């Protein structure tokens, strides 16, 4: 019972139908295997590029499709419904492309954005450090001016596909303490003194590699700085506003997958001589799940429309991320409950969904930080 396509225009409908087919026929059957093996689905990312899905919301001049961000998010939702860990990779890739598109020079766009959108390169985003998570301004990685560029040193943590990506957007300190001392850089894979130092062993998202990155006097040419010196923190936050919508769409897709599984199971499972979905108590649970998903979908799409119209969407993006990821947690938990004992064993996918949902409440700003963003903006206005 995936999202309704009736209100879309022809182009969107064609795109979503194509993505749905790819998601159902290719991504979904592969998900459990990649997760079990903790293997990055490199082949699927390649296919994403062949299908023209690596630069959906970016200009055609840079190999993108020039479509609305809302359309891109619907693609993310469809893929997340089939395979969350893979959709997260697309969301992170887009986060990196966003920064280059919004703040990069023309030269950088030709150099990096064009390669990200064509899928020749995949991108990643690296802000967090061992001592700087929610308090991102405290980041310590250093970028010192060097002949024709910068030398970057320091440790980064929790970077999705940091060692697989071809280009990582890295925030590092070029100036004094505080937000104004931070700059953003594109660090290319294979740069000497740069690479993954530890792959984290995680509760879920096991096929979406999470890396600790080490920068050891890694040289980045000046042309690969994104935006002006000192603009890095603003870029990081703007990227997160945008990326939060990606996580909201991922959350909605995952919740939808959990509901679909619950609907299937409760129709097939018989107890007391009838399918368990004939019990009103269970129907009420299913109804709540479906309603929360629909509300979350409306919320993220509303925020996306504001973004596409060039309006401020910070509050709405934070609301969407908060609501959709909390919804994913509740709905996946209920889906396990509706499966009874079968929900707790790995033969059914809902136990994995429940593990996967937890991370959505943490990434791109914890849900406590989302409330902080919303609260601060509310009292400002």
């Amino acid at each position, binding site marked *: 019972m995936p999202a309704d396509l009736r209100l879309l225009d022809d*182009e969107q409908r*064609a*795109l979503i139908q*194509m993505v749905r*087919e*790819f998601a159902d026929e*290719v991504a979904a059957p592969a998900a459990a295997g990649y997760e079990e093996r903790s293997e990055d689905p490199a082949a699927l990312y390649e*296919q994403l590029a*062949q*299908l*023209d*899905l690596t630069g959906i919301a970016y200009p055609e001049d840079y190999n993108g*499709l020039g479509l609305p961000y809302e359309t891109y998010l619907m693609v993310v939702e469809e893929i997340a419904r089939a395979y969350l860990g893979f959709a997260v990779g697309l969301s992170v890739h887009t986060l990196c492309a966003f920064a280059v598109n919004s703040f990069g020079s023309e030269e950088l766009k030709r150099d990096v954005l064009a390669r990200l959108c064509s899928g020749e390169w995949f991108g990643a985003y690296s802000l967090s450090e061992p001592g700087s998570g929610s308090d991102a301004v405290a980041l310590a990685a250093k970028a010192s001016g060097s002949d024709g560029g910068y030398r970057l040193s320091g440790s980064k943590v929790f970077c999705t596909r940091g060692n697989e990506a071809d280009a990582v957007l890295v925030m590092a300190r070029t100036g004094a303490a505080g937000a104004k001392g931070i700059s953003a850089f594109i660090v290319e894979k294979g740069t000497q003194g740069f690479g993954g130092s530890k792959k984290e062993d995680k509760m879920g998202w096991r096929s979406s590699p999470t890396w600790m990155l080490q920068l050891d006097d890694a040289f980045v040419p000046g042309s690969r700085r994104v935006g002006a010196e000192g603009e890095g923190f603003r870029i990081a936050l703007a990227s997160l506003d945008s990326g939060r919508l990606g996580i909201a769409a991922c959350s909605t897709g995952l919740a939808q997958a959990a509901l679909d599984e619950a609907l299937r199971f409760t129709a097939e499972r018989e107890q007391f001589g009838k399918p368990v979905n004939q019990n009103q108590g269970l129907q009420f649970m299913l109804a709540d799940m479906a309603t929360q998903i629909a509300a979350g979908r409306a919320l993220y799409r509303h925020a996306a429309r504001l973004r596409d119209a060039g309006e401020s969407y910070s509050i709405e993006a934070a609301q969407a991320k908060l609501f959709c990821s909390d919804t994913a947690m509740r709905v996946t938990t209920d889906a396990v409950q509706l499966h009874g004992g079968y929900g707790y064993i790995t033969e059914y996918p809902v136990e994995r969904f429940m593990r996967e949902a937890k991370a959505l409440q943490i990434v791109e700003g914890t849900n406590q930080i989302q409330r902080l963003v919303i609260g601060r903006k509310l009292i400002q206005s």
Partner: protein
Amino acid sequence: MNIAVCVKHIPDPNVPPQMDGKYLKREGIQGVLDPGDEFGVEAGLLLKEAHGGEVTLVSMGPAAAQEAIRRGLSMGADKGVLVTDDTLKGADALVTARVLAAAIKKAGQFDLVVAGVESTDGYTGTMPGSLAELLDLPQVTFAKTIEVTDGTVKVNRQTAEGYHVVECSLPALLTVTAGVNEPRYASFKGIMAAKKKPVETWSVADLGLAGEDVAIKQDVAGQTPAEERKAGEVITDDGSAAKRIADFLQEAKVI
């Protein structure tokens, strides 16, 4: 090289078929490009990529069959021809072959005509052979691999034992089996480009056919659904279960 690929719009084979009397119900049923024909389209595209030229999709069916052609165009074919005519409703394999032969002749000069071994809805498997005869082309069937060099096509023809290696001069007609290649998914740009690619719609009269040419001589005498799979035998273990299961498997020649 220019290639014509025969494609068919069929009721989605993933949905249980509905009958309209003796015939498969088609109207109001979600249709798709026959999955078997996707291999033909892919074969055509691979040859085009290797040797240049154009891929033309040829189909007969109701107006909705346009969708099957669009699907092939979005995979990368260049243009399409659809023959649609009320008089062709319920057409048998021979009439279909006559119509497709006339359409292919009218559409241009082709080095190769490609078709699936059989359709996924009708399964007669007789159309491609008739088509080759009507076009006066040599035919190579059950192609598992296709190689074109200097005006000849070399094919590994699948048999029960292995392969026949068959070579023949072009122009020719090939039928391809499922698994001959991996049909590509249409990219988004492919889907958008397909909307602008030319599709001709011709009637029986446009092809210069009439009367006997399109007279349906074959009648479906009847149809019965396949027998449903019976529930298996339940063996309660009274100490002899292992032996009974082994006997059962031996009887089925599994062990």
